[in-house]
């Protein structure tokens, strides 16, 4: 039986990974006739990375126009100043160094610049969106799940649009190795969530499968050597593949709920994902058994069970998990049959408010699954 052959798939970023990948940036920008990039980087730890970038651009016709060193907790209030720098130095492109918020910031200023608008009007963009500036994202291992996507999130401002894709993703081995293992694990949690959500029956086209299978395999093959540089590269590659696949399949209930927790600052997205994902996998397995079987046969070296087990290996995560479930359950009354509905409605109201999420069916099923199934049951394997 053929799988879903009706699809619309787009992946703007060129992926360049490995030894001296940074050296490719000049040629990439010149390909767009861009020679004066604005560079965004984190102030903490960014100077070494900036030095590497400058060295990579040394012999080229590309000359850095301006550099913005940003705080890791940058917020929407920082955006106008960066935008001003972009304009006043007449930059014709953007290079962003580092993973996480800085990449969302780059997307935000790029879209605001091309549409000549401000953040308050981000949902009233012209259609079609005018051409954005060429952008290169140089990544580190601590991905937040959005870097290579067509999405951004800064504070309460969130947007999905193909114009937000970076043009080029650089994964250079020299950029790896500075991030603690815990942060890589956190990124792997998010990657796993993106991959699992991309497996949904209605969205799993052969192209999506082409992006997610190597990502699953990298997670499986390199999960026990995470401290090594090649494993970090592989994890980052896996994260990028998952993000590109997920950009084409859309938010699912796990990433939706995780974003609710992230925006409301209850916990980080990766922490939320680690608690929610096992229930989602159980739900998928129960309802889309044939599909999950076919994914497992593609993956070979990693089973979802193994991956799910690894999510609960840290004591801290277990405690948080109990907290999340307790919080979800607190909406419910003492009797589950009567209590479930108000709890679900409340969460969905919250989701609506924060995300304007319009597909409640899966969300509802997931939350029901979380309330009905204990962690012990999930951890024991059962249907998984």
């Amino acid at each position, binding site marked *: 039986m053929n799988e879903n052959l009706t699809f*619309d*798939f787009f992946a*703007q970023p060129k992926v360049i990974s490995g030894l001296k990948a940074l050296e490719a940036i000049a040629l990439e920008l010149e390909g767009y006739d861009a020679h004066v990039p604005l560079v965004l980087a984190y102030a903490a730890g960014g100077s070494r990375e900036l030095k590497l970038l400058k060295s990579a651009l040394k012999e080229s016709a590309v000359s850095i126009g301006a550099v913005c060193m940003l705080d890791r907790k940058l917020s929407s209030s920082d955006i106008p100043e960066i935008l001003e720098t972009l304009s006043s130095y007449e930059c014709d492109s953007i290079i962003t160094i580092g993973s996480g918020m800085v990449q969302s910031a780059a997307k935000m200023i790029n879209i605001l610049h091309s549409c000549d608008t401000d953040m308050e009007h981000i949902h009233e963009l012209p259609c*079609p969106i005018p051409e954005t500036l060429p952008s290169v994202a140089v990544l580190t291992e601590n991905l937040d799940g959005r870097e290579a996507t067509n999405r951004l999130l800064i504070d309460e401002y969130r947007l999905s649009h193909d114009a937000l894709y970076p043009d080029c993703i650089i994964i250079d081995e020299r950029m790896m190795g500075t991030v603690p293992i815990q942060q890589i694990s956190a990124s792997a949690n998010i990657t796993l969530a993106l991959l699992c959500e991309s497996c949904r029956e209605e969205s799993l086209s052969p192209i999506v499968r082409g992006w997610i299978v190597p990502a699953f395999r990298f997670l499986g*093959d390199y999960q026990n050597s995470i401290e090594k540089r090649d494993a970090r590269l592989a994890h980052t590659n896996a994260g990028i593949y998952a993000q590109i696949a997920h950009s084409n399949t859309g938010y699912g209930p796990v990433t939706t709920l995780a974003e609710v927790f992230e925006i409301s600052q209850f916990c980080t997205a990766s922490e939320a994902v680690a608690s929610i994902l096992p229930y989602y996998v159980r739900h998928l397995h129960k309802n889309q058994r044939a599909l999950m079987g076919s994914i497992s046969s593609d993956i070979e070296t990693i089973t979802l069970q193994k991956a799910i087990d690894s999510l609960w290996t840290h004591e801290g995560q277990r405690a948080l998990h109990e907290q999340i479930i307790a919080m979800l359950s607190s909406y419910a009354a003492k009797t589950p049959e009567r209590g479930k509905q108000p709890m679900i409605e409340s969460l969905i109201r919250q989701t609506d408010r924060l995300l304007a999420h319009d597909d409640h069916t899966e969300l509802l099923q997931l939350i029901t699954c979380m309330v009905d199934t204990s962690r012990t049951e999930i951890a024991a394997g059962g249907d998984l």
Partner: protein
Amino acid sequence: MRLPDYYRFCSRVRVLSGHGSVQKLPQVLSSLQVSRPMVITDSGIVHAGLLSLVKDPLEESGIPIAAEYTEVPSDSDVNTVNTIARLYLEQSCDSIIAVGGGSVIDTAKGVNMIVSNDRGAADIREIAGAGALIHRLSPLIAVPTTSGTGSEVTMVAVIEDHETQRKLLFTSYVLQPDVAILDSAMTMTLSPALTAATGMDALTHAIEAYTGLGKNPLSDAMALQAMKLIAGNLEHVVKNPSDRDGRLALAVGANLAGQAFSNSMVGIVHTIGHTVGSVCGIHHGLCVSILLPYGLEYNMHKISHLLEEIAPVLHPGRVSAASAAEETIEGIREMNRRLCTATEGAHATRLHDVIHRDGKAAMKPDHISIIAQAALGDGSQFYNPEQLDYEDVVHILEAAYWGYPLDRELIQKGHQR
């Protein structure tokens, strides 16, 4: 799965797939911010009634076709490209819709290189050298009518120059079309023989992408998905040409194979196949289809582990682990034989049996040395896992001509003397 030390992957083509997806052309043009498209196609497409499938939704949406060129010859060359480019500029077109097989789409890419050139080139031959192809081109929408070349998604264009007897090869990321529309309706009229030949061309792209030196994790993944779709549907569609789902699966498979080899390049099968095609006038898909098992046998000592990996994808449920590599090759030979039967001999399984329309044999034994010599100048050999040697290519061609398996004892490369 091992991460390579370095790789690049780029496939910026938006792929729209589905039955009736060509109906979305008006929205596609709108999203690309263009309104004066030029349609490029060949007379076969017009006669098959396929052009109207493209034009009707545009007319219904009130989008005028600014110019139309419907006479792209099967051996399109630089003069055709230059002529169409002049028409494009005269009619102030702002985009191209290419409807056809590899020749039409490559012609459209050639036209796009001229009309987007900021140095004022009027002849495709003037566009050469480093830096000539780094800037974005005008929007190009490709609607493939065969499931083989993958040209709708590749970064390559081959344009012939009949005057100098040369093929101009252009390679650049900017040559990737903006949108590829895969619609089963566009391949429904393809004959069983052409379906078989083009399908095997796509399968060869996927296998050479997976076994070549330029492979990377993403090209591998695309190649595997392509193999699964093509191997799972090709014979069925050749026997049941009106199967829409099967047609669409082949179109998607060929597209994925195109994404794979565009990022990893091809190898010996294409190296020899290009030359056999140009010297003997044999359809490219049929050439590579016949040569595929021989190319894999030649590379066997370097790629047996990879052939073992693809065995269950190509021949699910019938491969024993002990001899998976050999069985992969034998399975391809069997597949060719079954396609030969299904097409009543049109899909030949050895070069000796390829007959031109005038009833004459397409290739003679005398051609072998000429082809072997010329093949050594083909650029695609650089990504082959094993170096090519003149004597070895002669052995391969002799075996493929007469239809017996390659005697690896006679081969210089890979044979442990």
